């Protein structure tokens, strides 16, 4: 019996030891369960690092532009050239001129809900689309979608039930990102929208935007 008690004491000690260890490890396990794991932090790192690389590029481009402006102040002709180039660039991205470029065309043969449309546009922006056209209408800053009785509207204008969304950007990246496992096509399929065709396009024509964001309340501030 004495031997049995010794075994029980040792076992109880081990039980207590492991119990306490498990308890102390609980916050770590919880952290992993809530997503703060090593691989997810690594994912965050890759995104912030990518953003920083882009910011460095932008800073370099701005430094060049600053140098050009510094020179342009001295010469009216140079100034005019530089200002015209900058205006043309902004008009291009702002949807004020007809444009074109490579990209993808997404045909959705069934009606989709408003959140799905908002998510699709967000996905395309996230992949890096330079311009987005929805059923012939170019999206610009302030463009909005609404839904009424199952029908989608863009900036107050009704969209056809069969949607054609065109995105100008790196065609391969857009195509692969939309079609990858867990990508937007799969998300639509899971929601019962199976009539979705995505095609790479060598050239997409981008019309000018017919929508302009208001400027009644927002005034330039110093």
């Amino acid at each position, binding site marked *: *019996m004495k031997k*049995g008690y010794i075994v*029980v004491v040792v*076992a109880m000690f*081990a039980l207590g030891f*492991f*119990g306490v260890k*498990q308890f102390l*490890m609980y916050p*770590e396990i919880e952290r992993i369960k809530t*997503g703060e*794991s*090593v691989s*997810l*932090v*690594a994912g*965050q*790192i890759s*995104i*912030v690092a*990518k*953003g920083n690389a882009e*910011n460095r*590029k*932008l800073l370099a481009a*701005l430094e060049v*532009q*600053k140098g050009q402006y510094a020179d*342009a*102040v001295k010469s*009216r002709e140079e*100034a005019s050239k530089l200002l015209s180039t900058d205006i043309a*660039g*902004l*008009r291009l991205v*702002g949807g004020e*001129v*007809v*444009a*074109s*470029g490579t990209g993808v065309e997404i045909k959705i043969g069934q009606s989709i809900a408003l*959140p799905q449309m908002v*998510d699709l546009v967000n996905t395309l922006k*996230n992949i890096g*689309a*330079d311009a987005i056209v929805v059923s012939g209408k170019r999206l*610009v*800053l*302030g463009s*909005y979608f*609404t839904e009424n009785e199952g029908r989608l509207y863009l900036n107050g204008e009704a969209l056809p039930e069969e949607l054609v969304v065109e995105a*100008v*950007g790196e065609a391969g990246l857009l195509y692969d990102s939309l079609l990858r496992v867990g990508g937007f096509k799969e998300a639509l399929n899971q929601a019962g929208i199976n009539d979705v065709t995505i095609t790479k396009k060598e050239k997409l024509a981008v019309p000018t935007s017919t929508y302009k*964001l208001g*400027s*009644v*309340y*927002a*005034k330039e*501030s110093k």
Partner: protein
Amino acid sequence: MRALALGFLYGRTDLARCKIRMRQKMKIPHPHLRREILHRDQLQTGLFLLLISFGVGILVISQLRVKFSNPTHPVSYYAVLKGTLDDLIGEQAQLKAQIAETQNEINKYQLELHDANANSELSGVLKNEKLALGLAPVAGEGLVVVLADAKNASGADETNDSIVHAADLRDIINLLWSAGAEAIAVDDERIVQTSSIDCIVNTILINESKFGSPFRLSVIGNSQKLQDALADHGRLSDFYRRVEGNGIKIEITATKKVYIPAYDGSLGATYLHEGV
């Protein structure tokens, strides 16, 4: 011996009966019974040990299963990565400050060109283009909307429904544009036409910058129209279901002057070219 003595005292030869009486008196079980009891005790101890061993086994296995891939220390990889992430976020802030400074210097040159009356027309056009695209700071009447996770969200009761998602921000921003918003920023990050709002782990990424709850939306526009749109629960049904059922917070304040900074990133297009 005691049984023998009792047998002698009682004058009985039936030693066995004396022994039984003695055992009954002293509560000593019969040898057969004793063996049985001993056997039962051993069985109980054995079962007890078996149960404890089983418990220890479960705990040992749990310990082994939560073992991290890092053989040296379970949290050291995490600590190193978290440190790297913090450094990168610090670098991001530094780069953004440098970009803003350089942009300001360019703006000064552009203003100089405008003021010098040389190319003043072009300078004015450029100024308007920048204003329209969110590349200039603006101020005006509007709203400040604060969205926050439910109070217990960081505790044990956290659920998918008790936190503000990137999708909520996207839906609210889309709704605000539809109600006539003229400029929007989330935590002073200007929303421009290329802005995407995405979720990564438990933070939200806007223009490659990370934000966490609470989210402060600054909106310029007709404050009454904007408020009416936000008050329409039917247009944000999923969000308001979670506000009412899960404690997500939304606070709307109308104000005469909301300041929204300029976008400090690039709007340049790589794949888009003028003309067909």
